[in-house]
């Protein structure tokens, strides 16, 4: 339905271009649509269709090829199963883990850490980004410090966080938040500053007050940047939580990685990685879905719907 509407909308301009060349000065859109309509619509619809089914076909094919190559590599070159288990072994391990309630406990722990860390980063990132974006002098004053903090590999802080906050979930939440904070803050800062001059002139010319200017101009201008930051940040917060679990504690998927490593259980190691990938994809889809819902008008959303 929606795609249909978009199609109709986009047909308009093309139709008009045709109409402008005509001599009549009334409603060239309608004329254009009559003369170019059906054919233009069909070819465009075909292009869109090809664009939309392509990944659904190509992805399984690529996956199958990878799995086949993997199986071949193991059987033909005789790689030790301790180093590279076969896909079948990994699949078995995944199913075994999914059937084990303890796994779900670990998944839930990691998910909680990621979610809380991400939300904390979002809250602090928004505030810091807006403040620094607005007060340029403050940003200039703090720039050296910000750059310094940013270039430090932040995972190096984990031992410190463990000392400060213990081996529980708190240190992991803080780690996830620390990693996710910077992309959000930087994007928000950029977003606050990148309100278009012409758009500002429109509001200024209309004598708009502060609150309407924020509601109708500044907020919607900044939202695409917020979501761009969030899409990066959600991936970062998974990294933060998992690396935190590597180094200390007794729960979470990162901890399962360490346990599997110590047991030299390669199939399980692969299985945990598979679960982490699924978790990451899920979270990314949540953020991306929120973006589609909140800023359906934005190019990144519209472009994704196109081939």
């Amino acid at each position: 339905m929606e795609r249909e509407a978009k199609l109709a909308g986009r047909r308009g301009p093309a139709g008009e271009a045709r109409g402008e060349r005509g001599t009549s000065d009334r409603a060239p859109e309608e004329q254009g649509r009559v003369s170019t309509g059906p054919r233009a619509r069909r070819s465009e619809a075909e292009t869109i269709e090809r664009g939309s089914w392509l990944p659904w076909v190509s992805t399984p094919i690529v996956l199958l090829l990878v799995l086949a190559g993997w199986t071949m590599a193991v059987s033909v070159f005789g790689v030790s199963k301790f180093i590279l288990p076969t896909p079948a072994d990994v699949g078995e391990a995944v199913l075994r883990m999914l059937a084990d309630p303890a796994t779900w406990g670990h998944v839930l722990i990691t998910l909680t850490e990621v979610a809380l860390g991400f939300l904390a980063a979002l809250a602090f990132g928004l505030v810091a980004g807006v403040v620094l974006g607005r007060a340029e002098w403050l940003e200039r004053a703090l720039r050296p410090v910000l750059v310094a903090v940013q270039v430090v590999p932040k995972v190096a802080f984990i031992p410190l966080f463990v000392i400060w906050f213990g081996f529980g979930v708190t240190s992991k939440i803080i780690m996830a938040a620390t990693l996710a904070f910077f992309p959000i803050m930087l994007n928000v800062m950029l977003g606050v500053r990148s309100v278009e001059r012409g758009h500002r002139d429109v509001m200024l010319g209309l004598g708009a007050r502060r609150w309407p200017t924020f509601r109708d101009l500044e907020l919607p201008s900044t939202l695409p940047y917020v979501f761009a930051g969030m899409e990066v940040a959600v991936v970062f917060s998974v990294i933060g939580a998992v690396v935190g679990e590597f180094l200390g504690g007794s729960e979470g998927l990162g901890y399962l990685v360490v346990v599997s490593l110590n047991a030299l259980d390669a199939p399980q190691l692969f299985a945990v990685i598979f679960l982490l990938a699924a978790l990451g994809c899920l979270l990314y889809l949540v953020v991306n879905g929120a973006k589609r819902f909140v800023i359906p008008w934005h190019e990144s959303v519209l472009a994704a719907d196109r081939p």
Partner: protein
Amino acid sequence: MSGLSDTARVAGAPAEAGAAELELRDVDKIYKRRRGADTEALRGISLSVRAGEFVSLVGRSGCGKTTLLRILAGLITPTSGDVLIGGSDLWQNGGRDPEALQRFGMVFQEANLFPWFTIEDNIALPLKLRGVDKRRRRARAAELCELVGLSGFEKAYPRELSGGMRQRAAIARALSYDPSILLMDEPFGALDALTRDRMNLELQRISVVTGATVVFVTHSITEAVFLSDRVVLLSPRPGRIRSITPVEFPRPRSLDVETEPGFGEIVRTLRRQLDEEGD
């Protein structure tokens, strides 16, 4: 709408010669630069525009046309001199007189539509800022879409429209609250010649129907002469008024007017004046 401007004029400056809708008195504008010499953009500009008059500003790039228009709109302050709207000062106690602002509709070089609003919401934005309820905004937007030939595109997003259509939506937005003064800064500069001709006819029709006072900045002398009651030629560095040329053909005009001898004469004279500026 004309009723509104009439009362305002009576309240504003009684019995001043002609009771100009818009007046600039000895306006200078100097852009201060942090380094190097300051730029004198405008010097001693005095101009008055009658209610319902269509005045064009033409001149070379950098002659201060846009600056002049932005001063009229209150987007920037003049360094010295006065801006009078309906006889009363635009700048009052450090801010722009909100009543004067109500009377402006501004159209820029770019359509400057907000990509997050549909065409309908873009057009009705000024009404939203004035607290008009949603149903009335919808109705007004539909009316204006009809006026500028965008019916059926109310729910489209700006990116789905062509440049000409977007610019028409921008004009509809400027008209949404019945302004008595339209300030237009090269609104058709980015359009191709054919679209431009059509938009000129459309604009002329709208200005005649609404009776609005229009100040129109353009690069094109032909466009200026075709549309205007008077053409103001600015000369650059610093921007001064070089000449004011009346165009006597009755409005509304058809495109055929461009082939009349008197029309060509005016265009030639203006072009010669522009050439004498050198560069």
